[in-house]
């Protein structure tokens, strides 16, 4: 179910897309936060000749799309859900780089939701495309909705 907590999401839910223009600050600050010093992400002085969006920024796109679709648990705004969630698996495929100044559109849906060894998992699928339709990233994500197993 959309519009609730992240743990309310169900298999088949289709997210309302989000879109934004990639800024130099977004790329540089995200890279800086993980001590990534490659010039690809900090300026245009690199082999691409343009400042590149770090491919792992798909994680930020996940946070953006959850913010727009889960009104009761807008984590970026500081809201919390009933339980701490734990990221379990990241799987990103890069189809083309995205660059500073480009507008990108993030779409996605819930592939599955299931319980394994007493713990609930949520499987997301996201795509990032530029506004003119170029595929940038496809992404599968598995998140554990609650780490603590009730005894």
């Amino acid at each position, binding site marked *: 179910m959309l519009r609730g907590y992240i743990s309310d999401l169900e298999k088949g839910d289709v997210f309302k897309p989000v879109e934004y223009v990639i800024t130099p600050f977004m790329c540089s600050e*995200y890279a800086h936060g*993980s001590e990534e010093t490659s010039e*690809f992400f900090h300026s245009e002085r690199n082999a*691409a000749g343009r400042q590149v969006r770090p491919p792992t920024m798909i994680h930020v796109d996940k946070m953006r799309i959850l913010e727009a679709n889960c009104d009761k648990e807008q984590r970026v705004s500081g809201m919390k859900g009933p339980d*701490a969630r734990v990221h379990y698996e990241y799987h990103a495929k890069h*189809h083309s780089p995205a660059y500073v100044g480009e507008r990108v559109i993030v779409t996605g849906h819930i592939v599955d939701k299931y319980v394994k060894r007493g713990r609930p998992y949520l499987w997301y699928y996201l795509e990032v495309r530029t506004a003119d339709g170029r595929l940038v990233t496809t992404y599968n994500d598995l998140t554990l909705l609650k780490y603590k*197993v009730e005894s």
Partner: protein
Amino acid sequence: MSAPTFEVGAELVGPVRAITPTRIEWYDSAMLSAATDELRQVGVNIHTDPEFAKAEGFVTANADGMIMTNWCSEMLTRVFGLHYLSRGELRTKYIKPTNLGVELHVRGRVKEAAKQQNGNTLYSIDVWCEDEHGTKLVDGDAKVEVARG
């Protein structure tokens, strides 16, 4: 774009870094900053507060998995450059919590190098992170299609 070449079995060496509260705060705040396009500061969560983490069933505060994923990605960017950014793939699985105080070693090994019909080479790479005792905390793999030089 130059074309790096590797034999099967070649080792890739990534960063070796301690998991500190400062590093955890750097990532979580940067993630929020990138999402909002303004400087932000992370609040209390399982990564930043040991007591909160304990209440949620963890031994102590632990690193956001994306920190390790980013360090794996850093290794691949350094080795393969634009080939990785343009035609790469990375999967990481957080098989154990990476707790505060761990000394994390990022590693990789070329598993396969397959020549493609277009002359490119598709590398399949095992990627993982282990602690200072050699215990694997993050497991994964990557693929990078290197354009012929």
